[in-house]
């Protein structure tokens, strides 16, 4: 039986970040992800905001880890080479009655330790955001708000964790966790059992199921679905900040948020659903997003729509993060109920959990830990000299596969070869951006399938969209016998 010091359950941003932070210590760390790829749940499908911290109730873990996490992003983004911009957040008020509400947010932020918050009037708002709707009369401005690519961050954490010695297993759903009777735990993952001195539960929408196996301090997670529209990057220059809305009679507001890749996210809705994996979008939900987003952005260009998606937030009935050891399960650590501002808080949660685990296991520091991870150099962000140099070193940089996002063959091959690399078309899409653009893989799909088949050494008929049963083709037109590979 394989023995680890720490087993992490769940390969979302919190799990991967915790894995990386744990490798700062001399610990054997393993991470198990049930899905075919890491970053498959809410870490992939969220609003990609680094929240300033004015929203969470003072005194909560949400407030505390939000503000600590926010401050970590500058260093983190440098170390892990991920796109991060401190572009500021704005909350719009659409009537004068909203202004006291904005003031309340300022005070809440101040209580949470957020700096630089202030209410701005229409004129200053227009200076900051000239394309915001005429209906907005005032706004809260939070200069410390930012945006980050949530999947870049998750993949970067995972790569860095593996580089520093952690093991990451995919398609390894944890079906059982129990005490081994000697103070540790037995974890059954992907049909195999392993032993762990400590367990960290980062199982997202399934975190309650894991917790409730080992602790009588039960928690309940409600899957809460949020639906989004994505607007093409050609509109990305219209807005600088992430733009929130004060709740109105119509309900809780939605965001108009530029991403680090310059696309614009509209959303999310919030709807409690029975199925934890039901990532469908709905006609009603998408219509609601548009109706509400139109308050912020009056003429949303329908011809700019690229796609829609939905994410399932793990809403905890305690209405706060659930962090650390339950009283009755020593060395079992929770990171449960991690919904917004979970992405912002993740780096801080990971440090907190890693320190707690290391302390309890009396682990020594790992002197070999290297915090630096380099991103795959992206053709699209290079200048002419950099491009020429990249091509000279690797001619695959001269072969553009995804024309909408200018992703080269070199980047696609590299994202498959990296630790915890891509194994599916979606895996390539989220790591290298091929297929992420306006044509949504209309042109590059077949080439990406070919490259995946070559790199993974499998026939193209076995390539999937996102692992598991998501096969892309049903077979060869002439069957296998004589179709033969070239």
């Amino acid at each position, binding site marked *: 039986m394989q023995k680890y010091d720490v087993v992490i359950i769940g390969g979302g941003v919190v799990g991967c970040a915790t894995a990386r932070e744990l490798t700062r210590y001399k610990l054997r760390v393993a991470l198990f992800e049930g899905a075919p790829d890491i970053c498959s749940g809410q870490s992939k499908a969220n609003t990609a905001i680094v929240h300033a911290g004015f929203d969470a109730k003072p005194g909560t873990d949400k407030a505390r880890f939000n503000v600590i996490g926010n401050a970590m992003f500058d260093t983190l983004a440098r170390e892990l080479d991920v796109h991060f911009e401190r572009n500021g957040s704005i909350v719009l008020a659409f009537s004068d009655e909203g202004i006291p509400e904005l003031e309340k947010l300022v005070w809440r932020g101040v209580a949470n330790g957020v700096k630089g918050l202030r209410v701005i009037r229409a004129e200053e708002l227009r200076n900051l955001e000239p394309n915001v709707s005429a209906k907005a009369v005032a706004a809260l401005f939070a200069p410390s708000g930012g945006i980050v690519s949530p999947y870049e961050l998750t993949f970067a954490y995972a790569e860095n964790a593996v580089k520093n010695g952690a093991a990451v297993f995919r398609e390894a759903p944890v079906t059982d966790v129990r005490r081994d009777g000697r103070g540790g735990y037995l974890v059954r993952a992907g049909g195999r059992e392993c032993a762990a001195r400590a367990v960290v539960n980062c199982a997202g929408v399934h975190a309650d199921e894991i917790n409730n196996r080992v602790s009588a301090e039960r928690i309940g997670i409600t899957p809460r679905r949020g639906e989004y*529209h*994505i607007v093409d990057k*050609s509109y990305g220059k219209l807005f600088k900040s992430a733009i929130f809305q004060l709740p109105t009679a119509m309900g809780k507001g939605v965001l108009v948020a530029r991403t680090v890749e310059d696309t614009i996210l509209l959303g999310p809705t919030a709807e409690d659903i029975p199925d934890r*994996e039901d*990532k*469908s*979008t*709905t*006609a009603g*939900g*998408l219509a609601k997003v548009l109706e509400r987003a139109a308050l912020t952005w009056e003429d949303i260009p329908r*011809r700019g*729509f*690229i*796609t*829609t*998606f939905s994410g399932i937030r793990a809403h905890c009935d305690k209405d706060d993060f659930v962090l650390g050891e339950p009283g009755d399960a020593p060395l079992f650590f929770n990171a449960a109920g991690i919904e917004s501002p979970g992405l912002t808080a993740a780096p801080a949660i990971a440090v907190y959990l890693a320190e707690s685990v290391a302390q309890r296991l009396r682990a020594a520091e790992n002197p070999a830990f290297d915090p630096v991870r380099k991103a795959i150099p992206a053709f699209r962000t290079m200048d*002419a000299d950099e*491009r*020429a140099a990249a*091509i*000279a070193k690797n*001619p*695959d940089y*001269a*072969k*553009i596969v995804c*024309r*909408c996002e*200018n992703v080269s063959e070199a980047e696609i091959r590299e994202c498959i070869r990296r630790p915890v690399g891509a194994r599916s078309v979606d895996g390539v899409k989220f790591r290298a951006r091929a297929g992420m653009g*306006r*044509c*949504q*893989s*209309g*042109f590059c*799909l*077949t080439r990406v399938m070919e490259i995946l088949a070559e790199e993974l050494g499998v026939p*193209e*008929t076995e390539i*999937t*969209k*996102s692992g*598991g*049963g*998501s*096969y*892309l*083709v*049903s*077979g*060869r*037109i*002439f069957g296998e016998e004589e*179709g033969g590979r070239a």
Partner: protein
Amino acid sequence: MREREVGVLVIGGGPAGLAAGIAAKEAGCARVLVVDREDAPGGILKQCIHNGFGLQAFGEELTGTEYAERYIEKAFAAGVEVACGTMAIDLTGGRVATIVSRARGLETVRAGAVVLAMGCRERPRGALATPGSRCAGVYTAGNAQKLVNMKGLMPGKRVVILGSGDIGLIMARRMTFMGARVLACVELMPYSAGLTRNIVQCLDDFGIPLLLSHTVVDIKGRERLEGVSVAAVDETLSPIPGTERELACDTLLLSVGLLPENELSSTAGVRLSPATGGAEVDENLQTAVPGVFSCGNVLHVHDLVDFVSEEAARAGKAAARYAAGETRPRGTVPVEAGSGVGGIVPQFLGEQIEGDVKLMFRTRGIYKKARVVAERGGREIYSKREMILVPGEMVGVTLKKDALGSGREPVRVRIEV
């Protein structure tokens, strides 16, 4: 970085680019370079193995692959340099292009004139915002066509087609030929966007129902597609609650429109028409950027490739003349789309016209026993009675040089019922 100078640079080696390159060469341009991103020229025709091409251009019925081959051979014979595996990643208003290829790395190309011939792309699912799961098994019809015809791969076995554009209809037949079961072709509008001939020979021949005024309202399946919900729509094209029907299928093909690929045009500062999604051009196919011309599906989405070739040849010839020093700015006399007329090309004319001018447009709806009328300065300069006009087929209006006259007076085209 390498640098080279050419007379005419053609971006895109599909039917438009090849025809433009050949015409530029024939018009006397010494150095004509056609660049194409793919490994072989021919563009979308490479995957069009069905027949129905070339009746206008060659007077015989060819497959898309055969039609392409004729132009490829002609281009080589004429001495057009065709660089495949080469992508244009930048174009300036001063006609300096940056191209990249594995063979030659990054290159700067200074061109006397540029012809934009990048073609179009299919509208993806996301553009429709069709709700449901983002499972595998949802393809644009053209993507499925590429998988089957060029890769020998079957997208799936039980197929529903959304949209009755010609590619969707053609794929209904192809999938049937390949042993798949096509359950239905679902069309939002009360009429099909495809040719009658394709409806009869691709759907009716095989008993595939065409559901007009219907749409897909839900896409189901966690990993691979398991089924779609199809519902009737009302006059506002909104789904009618209670009319939903479930169709179990593993494949959904989308044939819901084509969009000109003008990202590169925009970097050069070319002005686009909201009506066509393509450049605004004059009768010589010149855009607002002097010396930059546009033709084929990147200019406006055509119905027949034969017209693409014809238009592209005019662009190629005009580009060669520009490169040879006959530089004139784009015309500024507007061609206006009157009632019933969708995006019209060209959008402008010169004050002095050298010959007859061909206008092309799509109608905004179905018109029976209608007249196509062109007027200038209160004078009727063209009139033709048509039995039927449908948005799926382009209308061509050839204005005679003499009837057109000269001057700054706009030309207006409309449909009279």
